[in-house]
């Protein structure tokens, strides 16, 4: 028998500043809290404030800088501020997408951390009425030789697969990279893309007073309590004790929840809906209340926590409100639709209970065992949360790389093999073969064809979405402003390279401790660089997530702002992939200008010479769009057989990847005079294109007319890759062995 009076006494006990500090609320925030409340909070209230004001929920360090992002254009239906971004893809349909991190939990418990990251991002998308159609993930791990890395990779990949495969949403693209800077903090960023009808989009906003609050999905347990707070603090050794704060996912329940929610959404029962993610019942109810009202003026909520389906006995109001148990949703229903809603959830054997009502009080009132355990105004929790202008210092500019210190390699063939098999470039087949890429039957192109972006057909049409995720932390570390621009430009390029029109991005900004001015400087400048690119390319940010405090014992991760880009393909008969290249094709490099030297911050420099120096390659945003339009035009008019953007490892690696994907060798001739190292320069705004000889003249004439550089690189033929005769001459089979071999060998080695 639960001693309810002891629980109530603990819940109602007045809290002091010491207790607030233990909840991650500092002295300044404590004063703010007591002022807003006009009294000291009790335990439940303090718990609610602590999660709502955590970095994770309030974006208190980044909010003022995030506002620099362009968030609107003619395609955008919903920008940042809802569960996910929404864009118009024509024919009355919308693409709904977002990327989110689950970094801290994945380091502590890789399988469940990554799995629930996937679950959470799926909920963000189907909460809005979209059927999820694709998953993407961007993973960053520590040095392969670090003792923890291998088990983290195995756990994270199994977790992503275990969740995504079971819910039946294809995982179509992603990136997996390694660097010692992530030894103490791995990054697990997951993106979900969904498809909805524009007249059936659901929002967290718009709930009006007097309507039932409806809880659906899994029961509430004690897992994940304070997850949002954990994600808002640095790690130190011994944090494995945080394991109980990592939630456990149940993809089977998620699958039922998707089907049940979409079934209910086909009716007119739901007024507002919010998934229970970070800070669970607290943040979902606060967000719906804060954005409620016909004009968004805010409403109140009153909930009876005894009605919340519970997995364990004797749970306190504090635990119920802060639990991050997975696979739960909160809705505000129209009063006459309760029975209808219950019936839908009954079909799927899911819990569904009315747990309270919306009110016009503007307050959050919570009852447990008949007693009031929380009565606070809603507004200070959300819009009035702290909003810091953290001090920051301008990151130091790196001096140009002194090319006289870069020796000519003795064997270019060895260089190529080493680059193609280095951890960042090596095939990630070991990873993506563990992901179901084909369920739902609309995957036109996925990781398996090494393309620039995945292509997922819009079900029942001949249209498709192109999806990519991008970040080059090397460049951001070298120059956050230029690096920030490059990330957005690369996403734009990857989408254009398959023939898609780039539409919008979601971002996932991963950095260290924002309270350190050096780190904050990287955050500010990276955001500004990204914002400039978004503006110039008309490629707005529609949703996103910020993950700070990725630090262990004072050492921050490399700055890693990841972008997930979505593009629209109007006609699936007009796309280009890598695998389309044919023997006999001519390889042409298309670029925003003559290739220029510069190996600063390049993969070559890091992998071959072990140096991480120099500024990143130049980005010419003004020309980026023109080249992309040109390439897209070539694809539309059927002039090309394959397109690949030039990135890590420069032209040489771009050509090699194209050969690996198509299975045809190439004889390459570096056209410029001077050092062959130029072939490893990571020219931005460049594409490697395979064109059949009979279309070559047409292509060159169009390039000439458009003022775009187009230089012949060689021919696709044979079964080897050669450069300038015999400077490189390696069989494709040998390159493939090196490229495909690294990851399985690494994962299977025992040390």
């Amino acid at each position, binding site marked *: 028998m639960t001693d309810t009076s002891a629980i109530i006494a603990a819940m109602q006990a007045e809290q002091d500043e010491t207790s607030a500090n233990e909840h991650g609320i500092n002295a300044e925030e404590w004063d703010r809290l007591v002022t807003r409340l006009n009294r000291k909070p009790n335990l439940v209230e303090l718990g609610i404030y602590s999660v709502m004001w955590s970095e994770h929920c309030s974006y208190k360090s980044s909010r003022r800088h995030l506002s620099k992002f362009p968030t609107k254009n003619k395609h955008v239906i919903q920008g940042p501020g809802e569960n996910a971004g929404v864009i118009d893809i024509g024919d009355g349909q919308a693409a709904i997408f977002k990327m989110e991190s689950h970094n801290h939990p994945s380091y502590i418990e890789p399988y469940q951390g990554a799995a629930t990251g996937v679950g959470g991002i799926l909920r963000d998308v189907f909460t809005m009425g979209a059927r999820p159609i694709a998953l993407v993930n961007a993973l960053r791990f520590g040095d392969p030789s670090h003792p923890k890395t291998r088990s983290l990779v195995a756990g994270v990949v199994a977790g992503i697969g275990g969740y995504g*495969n079971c819910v039946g949403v294809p995982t179509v693209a992603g990136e997996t990279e390694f660097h010692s800077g992530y030894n103490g903090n791995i990054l697990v960023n997951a993106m979900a893309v969904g498809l909805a009808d524009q007249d059936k989009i659901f929002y967290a906003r718009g709930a009006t007073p007097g309507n039932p609050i409806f809880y659906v999905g899994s029961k509430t347990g004690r897992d994940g309590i304070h997850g949002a707070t954990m994600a808002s603090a640095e790690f130190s050794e011994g944090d494995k004790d945080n394991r109980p704060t990592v939630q456990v996912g149940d*993809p089977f329940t998620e699958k039922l929840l998707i089907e049940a929610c979409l079934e209910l959404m086909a009716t007119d029962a739901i007024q507002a809906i919010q998934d229970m993610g970070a800070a669970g019942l607290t943040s979902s109810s606060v967000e719906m209340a804060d954005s409620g009202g016909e004009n968004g003026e805010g409403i109140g909520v009153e909930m009876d926590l005894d009605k919340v389906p519970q997995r364990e006995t004797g749970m306190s109001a504090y635990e119920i409100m802060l639990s991050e148990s997975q696979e739960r949703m909160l809705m505000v229903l129209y009063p006459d639709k309760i029975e209808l809603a219950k019936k839908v959830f009954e079909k799927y054997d899911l819990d569904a209970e009315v747990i309270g009502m919306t009110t016009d009080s503007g307050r959050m009132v919570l009852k447990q065992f008949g007693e009031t355990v929380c009565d606070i105004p809603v507004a200070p929790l959300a819009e009035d949360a702290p909003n810091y202008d953290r001090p920051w210092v301008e990151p130091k500019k790196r001096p140009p790389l002194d090319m006289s210190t870069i020796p000519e390699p003795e064997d270019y063939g060895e260089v190529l093999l080493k680059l193609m098999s280095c951890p960042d470039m090596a095939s990630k087949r070991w990873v993506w073969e563990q992901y179901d*890429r084909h*369920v739902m*039957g*609309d995957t036109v192109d996925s990781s398996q064809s090494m393309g620039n972006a995945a292509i997922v057909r819009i079900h029942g049409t001949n249209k498709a979405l192109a999806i990519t995720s991008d970040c080059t932390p090397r460049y951001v570390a070298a120059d956050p402003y230029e690096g920030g621009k490059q990330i957005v430009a690369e996403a734009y390029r990857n989408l254009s390279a398959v023939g898609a029109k780039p539409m919008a991005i979601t971002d996932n900004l991963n950095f260290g401790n924002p309270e350190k001015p050096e780190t904050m400087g990287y955050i500010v400048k990276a955001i500004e660089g990204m914002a400039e690119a978004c503006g110039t390319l008309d490629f707005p940010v529609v949703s996103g997530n910020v993950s700070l405090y990725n630090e262990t014992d004072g050492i921050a991760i490399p700055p890693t702002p990841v972008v997930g880009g979505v593009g629209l393909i109007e006609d699936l008969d007009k796309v280009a992939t890598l695998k389309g290249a044919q023997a006999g094709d001519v390889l042409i490099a298309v670029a925003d200008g003559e290739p220029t030297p510069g190996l600063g911050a390049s993969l070559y420099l890091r992998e071959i010479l072990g140096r991480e120096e120099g500024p990143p390659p130049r980005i010419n945003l003004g020309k980026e769009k023109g080249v992309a339009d040109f390439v897209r035009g070539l694809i539309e008019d059927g002039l090309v057989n394959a397109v690949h953007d030039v990135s890590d490892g420069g032209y040489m690696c771009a050509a090699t990847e194209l050969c690996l994907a198509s299975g045809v060798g190439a004889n390459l001739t570096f056209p410029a005079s001077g050092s062959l190292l130029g072939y490893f320069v990571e020219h931005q705004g460049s594409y490697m294109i395979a064109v059949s000889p009979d279309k070559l003249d047409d292509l060159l004439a169009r390039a000439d007319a458009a003022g775009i550089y187009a230089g012949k690189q060689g021919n696709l033929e044979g079964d080897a890759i050669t450069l300038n005769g015999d400077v490189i001459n390696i069989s494709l089979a040998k390159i493939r062995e090196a490229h495909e071999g690294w990851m399985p060998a690494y994962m299977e080695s025992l040390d």
Partner: protein
Amino acid sequence: MKTAVIVFPGSNCDRDAQVALRQATGQDPAMVWHKDGTIPEGTDLVMVPGGFSYGDYLRCGAMAANSPVISQLQDHAARGGYVLGVCNGFQILCETGLLPGALIRNAGLEFVCRPERLKIETGNSAFTSAYASQSEITIPIAHHDGNFVADDETLNALESEGRVAFRYVDNPNGSARDIAGVISENGRVLGMMPHPERAIGGHEGGTDGLGMFASLMAAA
């Protein structure tokens, strides 16, 4: 041909099956919810789709095999109706006893999704008549528990009775004798781990699954 697709909680290839059957037959299959659904009278083919019925909890397919709809499926099979179980559907058919053997965790222990080459072991069945015996096709696989096991006596019988429909060319999961799909004694029930409904054209899975639906159209 009149078709139906059974939908269990956690099925996730039910829509793919629906699309493939619609494309093959020109009409929509009946989607039968496991709890209270009915397999319509006159149904020629019932497809048991892939996915994770009941989250694969307990054992893949074990709980679905005890679902209310299964008695109807057994009646349908007893009447000589065609049944096609793919992936989780194959696991369920083994659990119900409609097919022999069992599917256990892949020998490599990991989930595997990739295009897989299959050898047509018999072109002399209602499911494979459109293929030439001993020819090779490529069909995507995506499973964690596709390692087919049975005792030697059963395996010998399957082989001698021509009831091995497909074998893997590069066994991805450790299946006994490389078996990728088996047929029931009466030749009307087929279970297979690869996904023919993901190989019907227009996407990454290719087109080699079309032959199976064409075969069934000719048979029913």
